[in-house]
């Protein structure tokens, strides 16, 4: 295995692992605060129990996210020293702001988790709100870095590869930033809402009279119903943004080989790279033109309009894109069903078929999340900074990177299994016995 491939895979594994905990760190505090708020309003014990349970879950996920995030901040230098050499000054500002937001989140979480008996109730609630807000802020700042990699701005490239005339404001507010940030924040809320909904629906199927799980569904389902369709809108905006700024990525995502006017939207299908043709796909006439430019007659540039060496790995990007859109569509359908049931004031706890659907939909948000990041990152290849620096030129000269790649796989797999087991015990435990405090 080449060093470049090992480094890319290690980065993929690290990011793919971290992102799950990062979105939990963004969205779980909101759930925790919503439950706490309901408790303050109603004084019903199940909301307090729920707030404490979600807080425990947040604590575990946040802590693992904190260490995997620490690893990533170092890995940027360990794996991509030449990227950091050039990009460090430009992405340093959003990373610094992210550092402060994360710091604030860690402090507020300490107060929230351990301070219930020590600080006034209002301060305790406020600390939970600060956790939720700073979690989102740190997510937005990190996305600003990624948006800069996709649409780099705020510098002048010198012939020797160095950057000059740095403009930090332009480097922060890049063209991709607003759409990517909106798409990411909404992704965090939607994927965690559906995952949590799935877990509590699973328990409700076993224990239909549990007030705790019913309360959980009452809090989470509205969040899922609101975020699932909004996510389609932010995704549409992100697609229109791609059409202008990263047309190769869009063409790869849609496996559009030939420039077409109008261009059809392809559903499914396996790209055949030799024949430059997609097999088994369903074409929706003018769909892509409409999606990319809001005009059914618009021309969409295909892969063949760009040099072959600038293409990403088309099958991976296309399949990941299909997976993301497919999962998102299923989630919207489940959300619509839930909204319909809520409007008709049905008792959800007894609606077996809907609960089963929620359980099945539970992991799909997270699958869509991983697939979406695959589209973003693999779709940008062969560039680490779009149009500026090739990934192969950024990799460390360190030999035997395959060793550290394998080691990181083992470590992350081990941590993943342990976290999953711990969370499963929390989920499967019945709510009656008192908790053992550490």
């Amino acid at each position, binding site marked *: 295995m080449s060093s470049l491939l090992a480094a890319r895979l290690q980065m993929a594994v690290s990011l793919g692992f971290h992102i799950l905990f990062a979105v939990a760190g963004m969205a779980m505090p909101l759930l925790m605060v919503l439950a706490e708020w309901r408790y303050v309003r109603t004084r019903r014990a199940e909301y307090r129990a729920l707030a404490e349970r979600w807080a*425990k879950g947040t*604590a*575990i996920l*946040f*802590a*693992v996210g*904190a*260490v*995997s*995030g*620490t*690893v990533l*901040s*170092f*890995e*940027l*230098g*360990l794996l991509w*020293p*030449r990227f*950091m*050499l*050039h*990009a*460090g*000054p430009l*992405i*340093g*500002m959003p*990373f*610094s702001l*992210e*550092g402060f937001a994360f*710091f*604030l989140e*860690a*402090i*507020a979480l*300490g*107060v929230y*988790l*351990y*301070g219930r008996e*020590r*600080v006034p109730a209002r301060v305790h609630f406020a600390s939970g709100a600060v956790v939720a807000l700073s979690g989102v802020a740190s997510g937005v700042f990190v996305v600003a870095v990624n948006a800069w990699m996709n649409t780099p701005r705020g510098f002048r490239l010198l012939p020797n590869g*160095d950057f000059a005339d*740095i*403009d*930090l404001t332009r480097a922060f507010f890049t063209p991709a930033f607003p759409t990517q940030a909106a798409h990411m924040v909404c992704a965090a809320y939607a994927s965690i809402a559906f995952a949590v909904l799935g877990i509590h629906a699973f328990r409700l199927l076993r224990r239909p009279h549990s007030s705790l799980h019913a309360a959980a569904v009452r809090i989470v389902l509205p969040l899922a119903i609101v975020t699932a369709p909004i996510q389609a809108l932010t995704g549409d905006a992100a697609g229109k943004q791609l059409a202008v700024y990263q047309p190769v990525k869009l063409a790869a995502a849609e496996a559009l080989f030939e420039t077409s006017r109008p261009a059809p939207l392809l559903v499914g299908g396996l790209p055949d790279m030799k024949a430059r043709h997609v097999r088994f796909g369903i074409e929706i006439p003018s769909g892509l033109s409409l999606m990319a430019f809001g005009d059914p007659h618009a021309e969409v540039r295909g892969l063949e309009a760009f040099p072959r060496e600038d293409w990403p790995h088309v099958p991976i990007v296309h399949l990941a894109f299909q997976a993301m859109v497919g999962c998102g569509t299923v989630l919207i359908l489940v959300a619509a069903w839930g909204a319909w049931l809520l409007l008709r004031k049905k008792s959800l706890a007894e609606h077996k078929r809907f609960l089963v659907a929620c359980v099945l939909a539970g992991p799909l948000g997270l699958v869509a999340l991983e697939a979406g990041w695959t589209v973003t990152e693999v779709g940008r290849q062969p560039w680490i900074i779009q149009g500026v620096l090739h990934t192969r030129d950024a990799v*460390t*000269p*360190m*030999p035997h990177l395959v060793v*550290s790649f394998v080691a990181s796989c083992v*470590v992350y797999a081990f*941590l993943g299994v342990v976290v999953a087991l*711990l969370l499963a*015990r*929390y989920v499967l435990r019945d709510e009656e016995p008192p908790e053992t405090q*550490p």
Partner: protein
Amino acid sequence: MTGAPTIWAGVLYAVIGLGLVVYALTGGADLGAGLLSLFSRGPRKEEQEHAVRRAIAPIWEANHVWLIFVIVVLFSGFPRAFAALGVALHLPIAFALLGIVFRGAAYVFHAYGIQTAEARAGWSRVFGWASAVTPLALGAVVAGVSSGDVRVSDAGVTSGFLAGWTTPFALAVGLFALALFALLAAVYLAAETDGALSDDFRRFALALEVLAGALALFTFLLAARYAPELSRNLRASGWTWPIQGATAVAAVATLAALAKRATKLARVTAALQVTLVIVGWGLALRGHFILPDVSLANAASHPEVLPALVVAVAAGSLLLLPALAYLFWIFKREGGAK
């Protein structure tokens, strides 16, 4: 990017130094506490371990953000230094990360796992050992940048991946860091507990202070051979002896305070001692990140970036420091840990 270092670069260099000091005093003590838990023994073994966990529970995550803070300021302000460190000291940094990952994970798995006593004891041991790995590895990084063996040209690192950190000196620095961190933890815990438990930690602290003193001398002697330029800077300037004298005074004061059971005072003098060790080392680097090739003069980022970074750090601190003070006030004030 070469030329005379600006005042902004100097300020950021000091900010990084300050970040390292605070990391040592908080995150370092926290690592030291993990190490102490390995050595807890006697009739109050369980109480000792419990005191360690209770002391770090609300603050450990915040304590470790200081390291990220240092890294981010480093790569934003001095990207060339960060890139060179990532290459030349790839391996010890990777080991430090491994320690950080297992320590953090073992801590939460122990604290939040609903599991058997055996499994919890297992996580507790992982937590302790992982707490030892990180200071050793970070000590090797410190030794590496100080050694003069890591060479960096315009094309990048030229001295390979083993230079500077695979020496007896590197091991000595790691052990010295370990002893200082454990000393901080023992002194803090002695001040935060009472009765026989406090006395246990006080005795740990006394032993560790003696050990730290011996390791300091040992490291200093090894430096002459394995980090010659650093050693010269440590010995030959007008300012070094006052600082080293002050470090020794702080160490003796810590010993005296511990002997007299003035644990609150010992907390101050031990923190001062560790601060002076780091400041003394930082001054002996004389504006370098990696001796002798990477310095403030040639690693600083674009002149337009540095002031903005200083402003961001200052503004962030205005928001952060009150919050941090509040966190420590809640959990560490008199009677707060009860």
